[in-house]
């Protein structure tokens, strides 16, 4: 899972003190679609932007495990439970690939997790919405992971090698997430009227947040131009959002569900769907941590870390003892 890179406060204008020759060589390499690797020279702003973007992406994967875990013990069948468990394990794995990629830029796992837990770092706003019924698990797979795939596919060619390689691995696994979600909803719409209603209710609540996952409109996305030039981002927020709408509307029709947007219609001339206005105030409120369950998410994260501390310490002490014995 993923959302576009965001900042809590707009960054102050950067004064670059970089060596102009190194900077020019770097820009040329990136423009030629070469990959930048950990020990290569890179401008500080590139490094900083990547650490922020990759760690935010990693946090989103880890926090994304929480809304799904909410339904793990109440999955309607053993098979659905096994599938959900595998998906949640994947999200954990995705977080680990990404933390490792960020660590190659000189930050530590510990620093990143601290930044998440004390609110300095962000994660995708989508996880600050609650999962109210079982169909939400389907909607998350279909829409949230679907939007994530749209975002992530171009990132397989992002300029930073370790990030691009993590993305290749993640994209392969993400397709399972989306398909199992759609499959779940397919069986619900074929079920009782109450089950159909749950599926529609889930679409009603997840549609707009899914569109917001692509981030602010292009004319209000301050870092986009530089990130595009550095190939940290490869398509604009609005391009990706349009792609998502075009791909998803026919899928909703096949389910027999109604997309909750009265302005949605096919535009023959553009060859795309037109869709209604997104209410960005809600998005920014959720970015600021005002989502219905933002507090709950961070409390769950901190509890997981604190309650597991003794295990990590014991493992470290055990190895230190063994190392001492080996040395003796």
């Amino acid at each position, binding site marked *: 899972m993923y959302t576009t890179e965001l900042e809590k406060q707009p960054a102050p204008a950067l004064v670059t003190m970089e060596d102009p020759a190194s900077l020019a060589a770097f820009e040329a390499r990136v423009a030629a679609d070469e990959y930048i690797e950990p*020990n290569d020279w890179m401008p500080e702003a590139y490094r900083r932007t990547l650490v922020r973007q990759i760690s935010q992406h990693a946090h989103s994967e880890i926090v994304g495990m929480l809304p799904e875990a909410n339904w793990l013990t109440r999955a309607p069948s053993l098979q659905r439970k096994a599938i959900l468990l595998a998906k949640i394990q994947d999200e954990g794995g995705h977080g*680990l690939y990404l933390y490792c990629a960020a*660590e190659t830029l000189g930050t530590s*796992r*510990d620093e990143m997790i601290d930044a998440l837990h004390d609110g300095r770092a962000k994660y995708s706003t989508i996880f600050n919405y609650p999962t109210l019924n079982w169909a939400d698990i389907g909607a998350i797979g279909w829409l949230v992971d679907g939007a994530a795939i749209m975002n992530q596919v171009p990132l397989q060619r992002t300029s930073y090698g370790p990030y691009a390689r993590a993305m290749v691995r993640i994209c392969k696994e993400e397709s399972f997430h989306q398909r199992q979600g759609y499959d779940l909803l397919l069986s619900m719409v074929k079920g009782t009227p109450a089950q159909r209603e749950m599926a529609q209710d889930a679409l009603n609540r997840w549609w707009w947040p899914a569109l917001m996952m692509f981030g602010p409109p292009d004319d209000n996305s301050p870092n986009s131009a530089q990130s595009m030039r550095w190939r940290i981002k490869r398509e604009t927020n609005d391009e990706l959002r349009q792609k998502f709408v075009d791909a998803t509307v026919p899928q909703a029709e096949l389910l027999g569900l109604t997309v909750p947007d009265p302005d949605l219609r096919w535009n023959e001339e553009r060859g795309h769907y037109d869709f209604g206005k997104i209410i960005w105030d809600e998005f920014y409120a959720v970015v600021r941590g005002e989502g219905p369950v933002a507090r709950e998410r961070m409390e769950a994260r901190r509890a997981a870390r604190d309650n597991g501390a003794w295990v*990590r310490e014991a493992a*470290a002490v055990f190895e230190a003892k*063994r190392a001492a014995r080996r040395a003796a």
Partner: protein
Amino acid sequence: MKDWPLWEVFVRARGGLDHRHAGSVHAPDMEMALRHARDTYTRRMEGVSIWVVRSTDIVASDPARGEALFEPAASKIYRHPTFYELPEAVNHM
């Protein structure tokens, strides 16, 4: 608490192939490193064998000196079989 040490993970996809770098994991010791590598990088039958090695034990060449290291090979095209144009009759050699 400080992070556990970092380990690089290499996975052999199937018999007959080389181990290939898959990524890295944190772990306090080598047994745990192997377990974490297995959980993180082989959830879908991606491998039949795993190596882990402490990241600090890897010695890497300096990319800034890449030219000095690798450039000399560029001018030695006679090391490639295609450098030699042989008579038609034996050119499949």
